[in-house]
């Protein structure tokens, strides 16, 4: 194996050039900027850092971001699974269009999505006026933030679960049915365990994206301190005051949380895929 790899390396030309270009671009775009974040934050004392990130307003913004992203990711996971199931299992007119439209949140600039959703959900908007009759306000509340995040996150879940559902062999379900399982049992014991890793992956991606999302949320949130102010907006307002130390402190916590979520996801993924495939 090693001999083959070594041969491989020599035979195809271009290693030096492609490696050089890759590392140079990575260094310039990713590494140097991240290092400067580390360098800059090393100049902030821990006391200063702790004072910024535990100040009531910043803490409230973390909570708002966390709560709305989590709820949005749960909604996305449920609806995304229904959408993926519909697209994989059923044939119906307009399926192709539906499949394309799901990726709209990837293609539509977040600011455009933000202002459109805001106008639709204000108390005199097309959708907001319907909810206002029941006393539910969407725009400028946490419900509004969650709505924007559901919009942003939905394609992540659909695109993560769709290929797995498509690959799932119908034979297993048929076998379960023949052995006497009812519809719910087949769903919970046969299908669900198979798609769980992909579903968790999609959930994590939409959750992580929601935590950092700015463009679509900032219009619909109303941005009231302690109530509808998200963490990225706190960074933005610190930057507008040229308070780089505070902005960096808030950003560091966000980066740590993002990495932590991805790490947990990686662990869960490798675990569940081991359980499912039976290899330990």
């Amino acid at each position: 194996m090693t001999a083959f790899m070594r041969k491989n390396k020599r035979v195809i030309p271009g290693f030096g050039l492609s490696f050089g270009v890759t590392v140079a671009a990575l260094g310039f775009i990713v590494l140097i900027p991240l290092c400067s974040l580390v360098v800059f934050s090393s100049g902030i004392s821990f006391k200063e850092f702790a004072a910024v990130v535990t100040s009531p307003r910043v803490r409230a913004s973390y909570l708002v971001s966390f709560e709305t992203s989590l709820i949005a990711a749960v909604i996305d996971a449920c609806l995304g699974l229904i959408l993926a199931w519909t697209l994989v299992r059923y044939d119906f007119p307009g399926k192709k269009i539906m499949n394309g439209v799901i990726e709209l949140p990837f293609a539509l600039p977040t600011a455009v999505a933000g202002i459109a959703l805001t106008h639709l959900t204000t108390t005199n908007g097309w959708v907001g006026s319907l909810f206002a009759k029941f006393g539910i306000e969407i725009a400028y509340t946490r419900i509004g933030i969650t709505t924007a995040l559901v919009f942003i996150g939905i394609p992540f879940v659909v695109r993560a679960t769709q290929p797995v559902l498509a690959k799932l062999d119908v034979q297993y379900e048929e076998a379960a049915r023949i052995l006497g399982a009812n519809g719910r049992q087949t769903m919970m014991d046969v299908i669900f365990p198979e798609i769980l890793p992909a579903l968790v992956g999609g959930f994590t991606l939409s959750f992580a994206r929601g935590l950092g999302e700015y463009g679509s949320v900032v219009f619909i949130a109303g941005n009231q301190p302690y109530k509808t102010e998200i963490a990225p907006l706190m960074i933005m307002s610190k930057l507008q005051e040229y308070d780089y130390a505070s902005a960096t402190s808030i950003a560091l916590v966000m980066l740590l949380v993002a990495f932590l979520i991805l790490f947990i996801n990686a662990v869960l993924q490798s675990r569940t895929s081991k359980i499912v495939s039976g290899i330990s």
Partner: protein
Amino acid sequence: MEIRRNSGPMKWVFIGISALFLTIMLILPLIYVITTALQDGSAAFMKAVRDTYAVKAILLTVKVTLITLIFNTVFGVFAAWCITRFQFKGKKIISTLIDLPLTVSPVVAGLIFLLTFGRQSALYPFLKSAGIQIVFAVPGIVLATIFVTFPFVAREIIPVLTAAGSDEEEAAALMGAGGFRIFREITLPRIKWALLYGIVLCAARAMGEFGAVSVLSGHLRGKTNTMPLYIELLYQGYDFTGAFAMSAILVIMAVVILILRSVLKNKGKGSTENGRPE
């Protein structure tokens, strides 16, 4: 058979939920943008779009998107070639770093470039004496946009190249073909659709990036305002016709991108199916 029969009523419930959700959440905003942009007549729409600052914002967005596309395409092809065709130490680190920008909040992405090239940076005196302004200028906007779209092209090509394996490239190299010739005649035809797909994805995100660009732009009207930033400016000034007119252009672009994507996806499926181990 039994499954087919039992899925009868559930089928329409599922399709109904899906259609309802997509219509309200995704299609309604599009319709709203277009109708609001045209509510004062097409003359008002044209006036808003032809405004000097609007034209400048459109041109800046086109410029930034093009530079980003060229940079990330070149990088993506080299990175994919490097990662899939050679074995070397640190490969895992490189692929992790390529994906890293996906996990960073756009606002934080803007912040790290602000810290790298801004006033408090160690590089600032050099940049200043060389007369280069990055932060609150166009180069900063370009850098931030490249960062947020950095992995898009590479991530689309890498799986295709991995699935195809490198036997044919090796054979060509043994028969004496040069690197560029191998790429053009063997690799490129294989990755062509994935590459275009990645480029379209990259273009979509680049033209619409808001958070990262907002941090680095300085919001100088006519100079460093891209389309999304200009929309924010109009919106905050209660010029809704103007804001939605500019948005309508981006909505049309988004629809074009969606159509291109599904066309490319189908083409890509057809040409790589044989090479994929699925």
